[in-house]
């Protein structure tokens, strides 16, 4: 089954400096000057089947995070169509949905609700989430005392326990330590063995190569190469970087 289908997807952003003031809006309407825009993504076609592990690589500003936001449905494309089937758990940013004044345990509840758990699911998995995060001394401390690695542990633990059909990760594993990264990789491989789907963004071509069989290389908002991870990563490494924006 195809879980993610993108057809000639484009996303345009406007560059607007003072735009969000009432006076500027009115003045802008009167002057009718051209607004400056750029395409963060253009003509992207992508089909991801159930059970695939796809890595997305590319330089800063290539459109990787925009692509994930569109797949997850946080933002809508300017043109083209997006279809996403199955339950997705997305970790687009470290600690999004976490509050610094709440304890780790309280944040698990909040974050789980936002990701799509209901009360019964949280209760059934709470112990397991806490255990996987592996920070027993800090779990009842406020989050502002956490290191970024500890936040990554908590965030990843909540997302993986949701038991999604698609796990979407944006550059969140890189802050964990070796031991935890290994734990995550093991868990992701387990997850993959169950025929689940992974969509993974990283600057680290190495991480994409080891976790994914397929890689998509984005450059300036377009798909430059889509194929077996080893080949795409090798080509990406040899190419001179073209940074967008």
């Amino acid at each position, binding site marked *: 089954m195809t879980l993610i289908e993108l057809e000639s997807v484009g996303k345009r952003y406007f560059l607007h400096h003072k735009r*969000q003031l009432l006076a500027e809006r009115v003045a802008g309407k009167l002057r009718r000057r051209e607004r400056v825009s750029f395409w963060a993504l253009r003509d992207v076609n992508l089909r991801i089947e159930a059970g695939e592990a796809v890595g997305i690589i590319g330089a800063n500003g290539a459109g990787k995070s925009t692509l994930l936001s569109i797949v997850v449905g946080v933002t809508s494309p300017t043109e083209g169509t997006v279809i996403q089937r199955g339950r997705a758990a997305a970790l687009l940013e470290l600690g999004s949905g976490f509050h610094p004044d709440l304890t780790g345990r309280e944040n698990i509840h909040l974050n789980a*609700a936002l990701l*799509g758990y209901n009360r019964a699911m949280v209760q059934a998995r709470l112990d397991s989430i806490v255990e996987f995060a592996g920070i027993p001394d800090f779990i009842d401390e406020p989050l502002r005392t956490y290191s970024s690695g500890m936040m990554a542990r908590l965030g990843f633990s909540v997302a993986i326990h949701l038991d999604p059909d698609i796990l979407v990760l944006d550059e969140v594993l890189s802050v964990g330590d070796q031991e935890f990264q290994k734990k995550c990789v093991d868990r992701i491989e387990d997850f993959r063995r169950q025929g689940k789907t992974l969509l993974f963004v990283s600057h680290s071509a190495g991480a994409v190569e080891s976790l994914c069989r397929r890689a998509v290389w984005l450059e300036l908002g377009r798909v430059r190469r889509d194929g077996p991870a080893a080949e795409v990563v090798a080509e990406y490494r040899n190419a001179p970087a073209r940074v967008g924006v």
Partner: protein
Amino acid sequence: MSTTSHDHLYILYNLIAKDFKVRYRNMSLGIFWSLMNPLIMMAVLSYVFTRVFPTKIHNFPVFLLIGLVPFNFFSLAWASGTNSILDNAALVKKVRFHREVIPISVVLGNVIHFAIQLILLMLLMFWFGGAINRHWFWLPVVFGLEIVFVCGLALAFSALDVYYRDIRYVVESANLVLFWMVPIFYSHDQVPKDFVVFYELNPVAAVVQACRMILLEARSPLHSLMIKLTLVSFGSLLFGFVLFGRLKKRFADYV
């Protein structure tokens, strides 16, 4: 669509719990701050209107608090509701769920403080010799309608605030004007005839008027007043949902 699998009531509950815990965790006096604010306001205004500009109104502190408590709830819930989407930019950008939950959770979070202040008001009522009567059954209806009304405003203004950042200052100024233009420290009867129309159009004034009828005059609020309040409240909610629904699609690009 993965959003449909979300349990939005559970999200709502968690967001309200978050606001509540965060607000009180760092305060040693905790929930007493909810009581201090109206008590201080009541003390100051009572001083002004019994000693500086003496008023003929009987039991002025109670009279005042009946206006102040619903107004405080209205202005705080409206203002914090308006800021809610931008305050939660990280969520809007990175997590998918129905965004309507955000402003509504903020309004309902304020309802907790409203309830605490209402208890204070009731205690003061009894202390000044008031007694419960059957018309008190109207109170939950009146307050319920006020909550519905503010939810509508919070939805509409939080969505507009994303695109026009000055909206929050418009709301602040409007609240300042309303403090004087709602009969809080004067009674509805004292309003000049040619201005009565502005009060009739104002749902917050209607709420205060209804509360005074129930609590001070021990009678049910005028039916015409309640009908207007009902229409305006649900009208506001409908308008809020429709406007929010139209504007929310591009939130993530603008916050």
